[in-house]
């Protein structure tokens, strides 16, 4: 492990790996990534493997479009010898209330202004797209063909390998234990494997980011919360898009491998870092799937797991250079969509750190927006 670095990144999930790659590809040298466990061991590795552009805020629409356009060429750009398994097989957003349908219509206006090819679909058409969908309980749906599936492990691996080839040093099973600050600026980091002198630290630890910010006396307005997923045995291909519903509370898609991956949220979850599995989730998930997509109920669940959302007050990330401590940067608070925003996260942070002209305006995502009351809440999050 190096004992001097120009930039130290905390966390080797999608965000950390993308920031490392984007810095290195722009010519930054001496980059060190610290990961307390293994690559992709946190929120990225536990996510639902979807990406979408059907958002309700202009900011999220623009950022997801930027990321999607990157994903479309990621195998080539990152010169990956594997496959990130991009499948633009669509997202079908289903509603069972008029209120939700009205929200979909509003969202689509925002999406169209950003050039996203989403549209409202009739229940008949929804049934054509997903024949086993129980449309009797629905009021309508929205659809975007360009959304879809992406393998989070392989996509992160692609960024990781590309960054490593560009000279980035990754230290796994290396835990940050302290950040040394002198006269208001960062001078180094302490780890369980020794000290690294550095003037720049990037906090990309998502669910664990609040604890890291506290090391330099910064209070981030975030909390972490468990979200659970389950996966079934693999079966023959039977469903193209991700089916997602906010009110009915589910998302479910069939992976290219054949298994169904599904999740839902639970507003009674405690706000902590536990990642255990609960029986309650399994029951609620099973009941929901049985009602919305009955044939999937005939599949066997083989595993359930849990990951952490790092929730921000407006359900949008924070990309910033923290004013109180010189050299401290944050890319945190992804609220459940950090994986699919990976390309934009890396780009915004690399350009911010290197003082380059931004290729996408993310200035509304500064930390100060909370203190100033300039929130712009994303309405469409499961």
């Amino acid at each position: 492990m190096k004992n001097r670095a120009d930039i130290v990144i905390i966390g080797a999930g999608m965000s950390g790996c993308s920031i490392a790659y984007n810095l290195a590809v722009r010519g930054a040298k001496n980059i060190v990534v610290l990961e307390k466990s293994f690559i992709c061991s946190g929120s990225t590795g536990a996510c639902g493997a979807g990406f979408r552009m059907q958002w309700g805020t202009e900011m999220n629409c623009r950022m997801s479009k930027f990321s999607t356009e990157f994903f479309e060429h990621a195998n080539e750009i990152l010169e990956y010898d594997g496959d990130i398994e991009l499948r633009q097989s669509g997202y079908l957003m289903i509603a069972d209330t008029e209120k939700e349908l009205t929200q979909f219509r509003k969202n689509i206006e925002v999406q169209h202004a950003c050039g996203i090819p989403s549209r409202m679909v009739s229940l008949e058409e929804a049934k054509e797209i997903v024949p086993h969908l129980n449309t009797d309980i629905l009021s309508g749906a929205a659809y975007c063909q360009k959304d879809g599936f992406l393998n989070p492990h392989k996509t992160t691996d692609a960024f990781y390998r590309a960054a490593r080839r560009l000279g980035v040093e990754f230290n796994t099973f290396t835990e940050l234990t302290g950040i040394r600050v002198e006269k208001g600026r960062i001078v180094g980091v302490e780890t369980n494997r020794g000290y690294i002198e550095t003037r720049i630290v990037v906090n990309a630890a998502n669910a664990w980011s609040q604890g890291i910010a506290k090391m330099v006396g910064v209070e981030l307005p975030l909390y972490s919360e468990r979200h659970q997923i389950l996966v079934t045995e693999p079966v023959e291909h039977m469903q193209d898009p991700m089916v997602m519903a906010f009110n009915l509370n589910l998302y479910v898609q069939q992976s290219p491998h054949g298994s169904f991956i599904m999740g839902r949220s639970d507003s009674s979850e405690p706000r902590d870092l536990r990642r255990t599995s609960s029986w309650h989730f399994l029951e609620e998930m099973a009941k929901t799937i049985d009602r919305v997509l009955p044939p999937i109920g005939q599949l066997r669940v083989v595993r359930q797991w849990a990951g952490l959302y790092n929730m921000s007050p407006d359900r949008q990330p924070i990309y910033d250079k923290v004013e109180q401590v010189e050299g401290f940067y944050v890319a945190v608070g992804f609220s459940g969509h950090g994986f699919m925003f990976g390309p934009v996260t890396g780009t915004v942070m690399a350009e911010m750190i290197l003082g380059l002209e931004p290729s996408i305006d993310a200035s509304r995502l500064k930390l100060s927006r909370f203190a100033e009351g300039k929130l712009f809440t994303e309405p469409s999050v499961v």
Partner: protein
Amino acid sequence: MDENTIICRCSDVTLKEIRALIAQGYLSFDEIKRITRVGMGPCQGKTCGQLVLREIANATGQSMAELQFHQLRPPVVGVKLHLIAEEAERHEE
């Protein structure tokens, strides 16, 4: 041993693929699992787990006891979602 030997029967992963990843520095079961799908299938690593760990142990000189398997998660065996839903509703009545 023949390198085309299947180590993970659920996901068709060969010994060759496992050894190639170990040689590239993927030194834990979890890391190898995330790239190859080893242990992600219906058996949840009950068949392949020890085999993969032994390969890591042989390559790194660590003892098998020092190595970590993936976190064990429910269910123990595959269960139909519909049966879980039915039971849940019966309990609620």
